[in-house]
């Protein structure tokens, strides 16, 4: 990295900078913001940044050409936080399959092979052989994923590339490339901002924000109660702790995997501690059986749920649906997303058993309904006013409400995307997120010989649907690395070099 240009003034954003879409080097220098040169910068530092950097390191880019700007210390930090809140501690198994390995660009050996080898347990191999026909999909333990990410991060020198800070915006540079404005943690830099000047920038900032169901949001604000109405992605151990002290009722909202996980926790606790917990489960869309437009497109479902192993049909990560979507534009693309979309959860045998027991035992009640409002009852508990499609009105009273409906806010809630949409020519795709090319370059944001890429949930709705998953982030990373190779930033990866690099991975030797 070149030595920073010495700042002249305050080192903060000026009105001139804020209002100008494309900046010159002089403008930045005049504002007194220290400037560092780095050819490739990735913003975010989560799983998406990690797999991209992993690809580039394996393709041969030295650590001195890459910086990861992030507000977290290690790439799986946010993921681990969200999974732990939503009831997947390290020993539990995650959703994605055996060969979705963010620490290994080849996906071989798969996690199942590794766990089978380490634990001398051939049953895992039998499981992957017979899934999803005779068995549920085999999926790795969260702990296995994190340990392997740590090993790979060390191997590629991840922490040599990490810069702590909050990315404020990315702007085009007159003459090519981009400026990334970063707010370093307080007390770590002499100025309020620092700027990186790069030819390539990659955005992988994850979810723009937590989104609440509007009626729950209203309740929380109106009554200032953030304890009894919770989102499953927030820490909410208090719910489970309370239920251990006395019998209680919980309302669950949502029909996705997070609802399944929360239910499992409630059922497990009920059994383990001999509790009396009553569970009321409200589905906005209640699925009663196989559903879909025609015989070629029918998904299994029942008891309220739509069943699917992963968050998209499996072939979006490499098969037919990936190939089909790659060709679609505009309304046709949006329609295809609609056809295969919708909230869903895997049909796991354990979960099915627990729910069946709950229904038989009269402590699990699931029904279709739209919640019109939530109010406190005279005894301080929570009354939900629920109207079902057939006109039935129910008013379940509960001690806690857990919102399991998802966490995706509009992309413009994220400052970096809002700025990009306003100043850099980026625009929305047919489902309202960031429109990217097939190689994940943000459309309409090219700057000279530079390129701006994005991956992760913000790019859902593009030519590739499975973006917000480990494997999807790796698909994006590969497209980006290959595009960078085409532009001469790194060497192409052919079969021989790939094999050599794989052996390095296997022996845990540096790239």
């Amino acid at each position, binding site marked *: 990295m070149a030595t920073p240009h010495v700042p002249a003034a305050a080192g903060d954003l000026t009105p001139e900078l804020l209002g100008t879409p494309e900046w010159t080097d002089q403008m930045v220098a005049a504002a007194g913001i220290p400037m560092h040169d780095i050819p490739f910068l990735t913003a975010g530092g989560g799983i998406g940044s990690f797999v991209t950097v992993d690809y580039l390191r394996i393709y041969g880019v030295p650590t001195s050409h890459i910086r990861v700007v992030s507000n977290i210390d290690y790439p799986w930090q946010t993921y681990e936080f969200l999974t732990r809140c939503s009831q997947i501690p390290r020993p539990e198994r995650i959703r994605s399959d055996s060969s979705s390995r963010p620490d290994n660009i080849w996906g071989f050996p798969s996690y199942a092979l590794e766990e089978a080898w380490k634990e001398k347990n051939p049953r895992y191999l039998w499981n992957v052989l017979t899934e999803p026909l005779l068995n549920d999909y085999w999926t790795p333990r969260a702990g296995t994923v994190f340990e392997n990410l740590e090993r790979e991060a060390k191997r590629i020198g991840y922490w040599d590339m990490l810069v702590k800070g909050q990315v404020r915006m990315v702007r085009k540079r007159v003459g090519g490339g981009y400026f990334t404005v970063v707010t370093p943690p307080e007390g770590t830099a002499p100025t309020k901002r620092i700027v990186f000047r790069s030819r390539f920038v990659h955005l992988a900032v994850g979810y723009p924000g937590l989104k609440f169901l509007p009626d729950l949001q209203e309740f929380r604000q109106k009554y200032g109660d953030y304890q009894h109405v919770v989102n499953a992605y927030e820490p909410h151990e208090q719910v489970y702790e309370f239920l251990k002290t006395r019998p209680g009722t919980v309302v669950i909202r949502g029909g996705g995997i997070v609802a399944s996980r929360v239910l499992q926790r409630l059922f497990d606790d009920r059994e383990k501690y001999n509790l009396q917990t009553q569970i009321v489960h409200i589905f906005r869309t209640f699925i009663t059986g196989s559903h879909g437009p025609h015989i070629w497109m029918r998904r299994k479902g029942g008891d309220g749920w739509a069943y699917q192993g992963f968050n998209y049909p*499996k072939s979006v990560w490499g*098969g037919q649906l990936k190939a089909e979507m790659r060709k679609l534009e505009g309304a046709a693309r949006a329609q295809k997303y609609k056809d295969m979309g919708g909230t869903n959860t895997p049909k796991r045998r354990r979960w099915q058993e627990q729910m069946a027991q709950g229904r038989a035992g009269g402590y699990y009640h699931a029904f279709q309904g739209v919640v019109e409002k939530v109010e406190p009852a005279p005894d301080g508990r929570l009354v939900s006013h629920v109207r079902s499609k057939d006109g039935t009105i129910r008013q379940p009273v509960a001690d806690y409400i857990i919102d399991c409906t998802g966490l995706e806010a509009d992309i413009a809630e994220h400052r970096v995307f809002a700025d990009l949409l306003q100043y850099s020519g980026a625009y929305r795709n047919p489902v309202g997120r960031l429109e990217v090319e097939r190689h994940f370059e943000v459309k309409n944001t090219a700057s000279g010989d530079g390129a701006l890429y994005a991956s992760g949930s913000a790019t859902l709705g593009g030519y590739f649907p499975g973006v917000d998953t480990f494997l999807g982030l790796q698909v994006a990373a590969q497209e980006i690395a290959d595009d960078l190779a085409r532009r001469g930033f790194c060497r192409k990866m052919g079969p021989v070099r*790939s094999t050599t690099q794989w052996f390095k991975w296997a022996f845990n030797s540096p790239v």
Partner: protein
Amino acid sequence: MVPTLFGRIQTRLFLLATVGVIVTLIIVPFLPGTSGPIGDLYATGFMVLVSVAVLGVIWEFIYHFLMQFRWEKDWPTLFGLLTFINEGLLLFFLLRTGILDSIADAPPAGAFWTHFIVVWLCVWLVANGPMRVPFIRWRFRGGRVL
């Protein structure tokens, strides 16, 4: 790898031309119940291999069609293994009819099944993992090699 139609066909042809050829070269001299000049045995062995490839292209169309009934448009690993039964039986009976006798002698049953199953297993094993090592784009392209 979740295949597309072209991916299936390419993967099959590629793996038979590599793994299949190597396995055939190694295994033919040791096949049970065979006799005669080694050149003839290899002619028979490669005739079987080529037939698996040619008939396989037709089979792949059928598998692709059947896959359309699956919501996920996927092809479970086990299907890839068990389809040796239908393919093996069809080929075995075709060879019995003698339609390929002008090219090479049909192998005895023991030799045919040993050869066929060993090739099948090796191809299936390579397709379910090691193939991804040299070809990092293969699994994201529905099994296309080109």
